[in-house]
């Protein structure tokens, strides 16, 4: 009875404990940030109530609903669709549907646990802030909504990775109905329909598992020849990014982020800020939107690939370790591949200049370059330290938070320099040069960490 569920829950728990044991400082930092974020939401609630800003209950509900929908879809992808360990359970006499149901149930329990933990923390924080907490019906509705998200999300993941993607249509129609109705009660009433969706998903679940596991022979004919060491290392990274279609995704992100940033730069204050405090926010809000746009692009094109230079090498690191190469050469060779990632950010600059004009462009390019380099400087040693922790979202989150602070301070300081001196281009270039020195130090540190991974006595 529920063997697979119990096993998955145990594995989940042990993985978490092992990660905490392996990187206690990082996890302490992350936990502190999470709790801090929830408490900040409490303060935000207080602030909005004080400014008499009327926020829509449905918007809050739908944001949470969407978050849990994505989380459950990702969990089912990891626990079932992509999982290779599950092959053992699926090869036993137990029916496939039953095992898939067990997997779904485990993700349901994990995510509901998270919901209750964070919602309780939020309620406690607003209780401490003396905000009246007496919305039992609303809480019940949101909880049922979260349960519906956890039932529909897995079905979306299943059919997205299936040969018959048209099966996604009913789920998408259901989501469309939720958005169109704009009523929490209507969403809650569809609980039986969501259950039906889940049964349908479980019934066809095995198709997705088999579809993802199919092996296709991919032929790539390319003139190959010997290269020098650095270019060989960089070329391998570039080939992987290219074949995983990541460069396209970087360019796409840069363009769409620029368009959204530009839109918010022009109209953000009118859309998002209550009229009572709009005049106060109007001075700094457009610059903040541009900074956030740059930050998102840098996170995607610098932090993500530079962390993955080593995080993705879980089982293949033996290749580089057993070759007669200095670790510093390995780090530099891999880092060179990031030059191409930087080129993918150029469309951001091109598109954002349409909205903000050319005058601000040199400073914007500087902020982008600074943030990109800072992202690489922070990510390299952490990636080298945690080689193989492939999808460690916590590590990614920690790097993102550090970068936010560093880039935020630098952008403010840079902006200040442009106001107080006419020689600001000289100062900004000097800062970039200093940053290059830090990049070199970061590469040295990463090499030292890599070396200590294999030659500790």
């Amino acid at each position, binding site marked *: 009875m529920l063997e697979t569920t119990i096993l998955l829950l145990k594995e989940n728990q042990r993985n978490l404990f092992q990660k905490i044991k392996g990187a206690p400082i990082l996890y302490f930092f992350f936990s502190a940030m999470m709790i801090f974020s929830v408490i900040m939401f409490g303060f935000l609630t207080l602030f909005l109530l004080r400014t008499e800003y009327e926020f829509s209950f449905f918007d809050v509900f739908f944001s949470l609903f969407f978050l849990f929908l994505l989380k459950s879809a990702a969990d089912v992808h990891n626990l079932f669709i992509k999982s290779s360990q599950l092959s053992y359970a699926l090869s036993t006499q137990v029916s496939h549907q039953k095992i898939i149901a067990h997997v779904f149930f485990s993700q349901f329990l994990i995510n509901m646990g998270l919901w209750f933990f964070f919602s309780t923390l939020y309620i406690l924080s607003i209780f401490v802030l003396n905000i009246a907490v007496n919305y039992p019906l609303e809480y019940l509705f949101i909880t049922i909504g979260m349960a519906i998200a956890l039932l529909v999300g897995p079905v979306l993941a299943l059919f997205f990775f299936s040969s018959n993607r048209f099966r996604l249509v009913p789920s998408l129609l259901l989501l469309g109905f939720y958005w169109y109705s704009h009523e929490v009660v209507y969403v809650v009433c569809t609980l039986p329909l969501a259950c039906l969706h889940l049964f349908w998903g479980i019934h066809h679940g095995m198709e997705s598992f088999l579809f993802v596991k199919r092996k296709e*022979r991919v*032929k790539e004919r*390319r003139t190959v020849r010997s290269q020098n060491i650095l270019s060989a290392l960089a070329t*391998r990274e570039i080939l992987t990014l290219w074949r995983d279609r990541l460069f396209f995704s970087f360019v796409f992100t840069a363009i769409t982020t620029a368009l959204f940033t530009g839109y918010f730069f022009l109209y953000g204050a009118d859309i998002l800020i209550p009229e009572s405090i709009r005049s106060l926010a109007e001075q700094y809000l457009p610059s903040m939107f541009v900074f956030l746009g740059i930050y998102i692009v840098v996170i995607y094109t610098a932090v993500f690939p530079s962390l993955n230079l080593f995080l993705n090498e879980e089982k293949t690191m*033996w290749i580089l370790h057993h070759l*007669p*190469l200095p670790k510093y050469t390995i780090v530099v060779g891999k880092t060179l591949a990031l030059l191409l990632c930087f080129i993918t950010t150029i469309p951001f600059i091109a598109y954002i200049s349409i909205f903000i004009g050319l005058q601000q462009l040199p400073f914007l390019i500087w902020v982008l370059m600074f943030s990109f380099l800072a992202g690489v400087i922070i990510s390299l040693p952490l990636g080298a330290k945690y080689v193989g922790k492939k999808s460690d979202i916590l590590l990614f989150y920690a790097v993102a938070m550090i970068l936010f602070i560093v880039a935020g301070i630098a952008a403010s300081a840079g902006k200040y320099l442009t106001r107080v001196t006419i020689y600001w281009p000289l100062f900004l270039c000097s800062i970039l040069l200093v940053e290059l020195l830090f990049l070199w130090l970061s590469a040295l540190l990463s090499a030292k960490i890599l070396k200590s991974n294999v030659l500790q006595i």
Partner: protein
Amino acid sequence: MITISNLTKRYGKIVALNQVSFTFENSQVIAIMGENGAGKSTLLKICAGILPFNQGEVIIDNYSLTKDSIEARTHIGYLPEMPELYDRLTGREFLFYIASLRKLAKASQIITELTDITGIKDFLDYELGSYSKGMKQKISLISAMMHAPKNLLLDEPVYGLDPPTSRTIQDFIRKRQGTTIIATHSTRLVEQVADVVYILMRGNVVLCDKVQTLLKKYQTIENAYFRCKDLQHA
């Protein structure tokens, strides 16, 4: 030549290798046998420079693995038990990549020769992610041998290979000049190619002898292995 002195490796509280010492002479084929978890793969990983150890010293052709790591690794070729490769590279790209990192002259010629021998030539332009286990094994074997290393470390070299390739590999091991260390469970492979056999149990060397001597005494290496195991239990 590989000299190992008082090597200790611990995984937490478990002692994988307990102060073991070996001298692997030139032009010898040395087989390391032992039950699962005896420390065979650990020993090879340490010699290949991919696993840290707690105590002791490893000298490869007069170079210390800790002090002169790069020079030591220049003289090593290593085939892991389960070769994990870069899935998005083709076989050809991978071999040229290794050749570039090893600064190999005449890489193209060497790769053509070795891929002909192992029968993988027709699959060189396919991505490694689509290779079968045996094909991955062949590609890794080529990458381990392409720079003609003085010391070759092979972890289960014929496991997963088809019989003709397996025979070719055995012939190659027999004919080569340098030191070859094989970690294996296959008593047949040991009988056919090895000069000396070491049996490890729970991180300790419990037997070290010439294969011919053991064959005279026990008829087969399997008999020798079980005799050794019985003595340990007694």
